[in-house]
């Protein structure tokens, strides 16, 4: 089972917590919006990523499970 991390760009306000909590996964552009370094998430990496996803004040981050 694998998953993808997605950003709902209409929600993201560029708070930057994702990059602070998971710098390996998220960088920030010059305006403070996240750049997802690699959207594909292995199952064993989910626990490390979960805090960053849950911390987003705008609820803009989602982990989408691949069904196929």
């Amino acid at each position, binding site marked *: 089972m694998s998953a993808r991390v997605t950003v709902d*760009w209409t929600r993201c306000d560029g708070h930057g917590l994702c990059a602070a909590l998971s710098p390996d996964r998220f960088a920030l552009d010059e305006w403070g919006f996240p750049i997802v370094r690699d959207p594909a998430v292995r199952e064993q990496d989910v626990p490390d990523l979960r805090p960053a996803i849950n911390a987003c004040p705008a609820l803009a981050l989602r982990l989408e499970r691949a069904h196929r």
Partner: protein
Amino acid sequence: MTALLDRPVDTTAWTVGEPRLLAGLAEQFRLDLAAHIAVHGPLPPAERLLGYLDAAPIAGRGGAGFPLGAKLRSLPGRAKHVVVNGTESEPASRKDRTLLLRTPHLVLDGAVATAAATGAREVTVAVHDEAVAASVRSAVAERRDARGVRVRVIPGGFVAGEARAVVRALQGGPALPPGRRTPPTETGTLVSNAETFAQAAILLRRGPHRFADTGTRTEPGTTLLTVGGAVARPGVVEIPLGTPLGIVLSAAGAPVAPEAVILGGYHGSWVRPLPELRLSREGAAAAGAAFGAGVLLVLDGASCALGELTRVAGWLAAESARQCGPCRFGLPALAADVTALALGQRRPGAAFEHARVVTGRGACAHPDGAARFVTSGLHLLADEVDRHRAGGCRRPVLAQLPIGSAR
């Protein structure tokens, strides 16, 4: 592009080869129901549509090119709602409004048949301006099979024409692309471009074999282009798919050696005007471009091409819905980069970097399309960028590329 600012749209139209969608329009401005039946004949049974689409695929004519047959088959069971997207938000495009103003029954044939073939009870024609709505309403009133067809005028703007934004506006929400990339078909709503439905009406009448007796093997039939810029005969043109660019340029009265053409509109690409370029999705892809919604714009060399690019880059930034950070901040930054290049102040590295950084980072394809437009333009105009750094090209900016009114 609100109703108040609307000017009557120029619906000049001509054809290369036999007209199909535009049949009868050389003789009459508008086909009412009687004229429509006289030109096209009665509409065959709708249940043939799916099988016909398997044999003669129709790529969606709104820009993305998704095959209509695949879209119909991706519906979960019956469709609930068929939506004709007649909003035509691309400022240089006039083909859908030309169809809806001059041959509305062809579009309605396709919509009604698609609804019948998929079990949809509701049909809505979504448009941006009242004149188009009036034409469709009067066509609906003439038909017996269109009692459930509604016509809705929804707010304008470039990104408001995106399929999911249209559905959202019809449901009472803002005319903006939603943040989740869920296709409307998942909830039983089939949205397609107005020309796509007109093509379906042609396919139903001709059958797949006669539909495919023009066009290419993989892209049968004809398509509509909107030709503009520095040409003597701008207008909506019906061509067999795969027609060489040179034939359309000379028929449109373009200069013998244009400086550049833009294929696919303002989410499309600047390409070198090679006469042998085939006007089809495959032909455009082979030239590194996108066919988009069939817009073909010509620059003749009299106008400063980098200045033209600068104007459109600024317009694209202004058309951001400002929902998504990378688009809201990135497109103005990109436009500023292009302005600096036109002023001879910089090298193009910053523009390419901003184009890269906005791509794929929005709720809709607006940042991606804007980045493609600017990047392809700067590649094609590399020598021109150098000339501007060395003091300028000494050409005026003639506004050969049309842009809509800023909202």
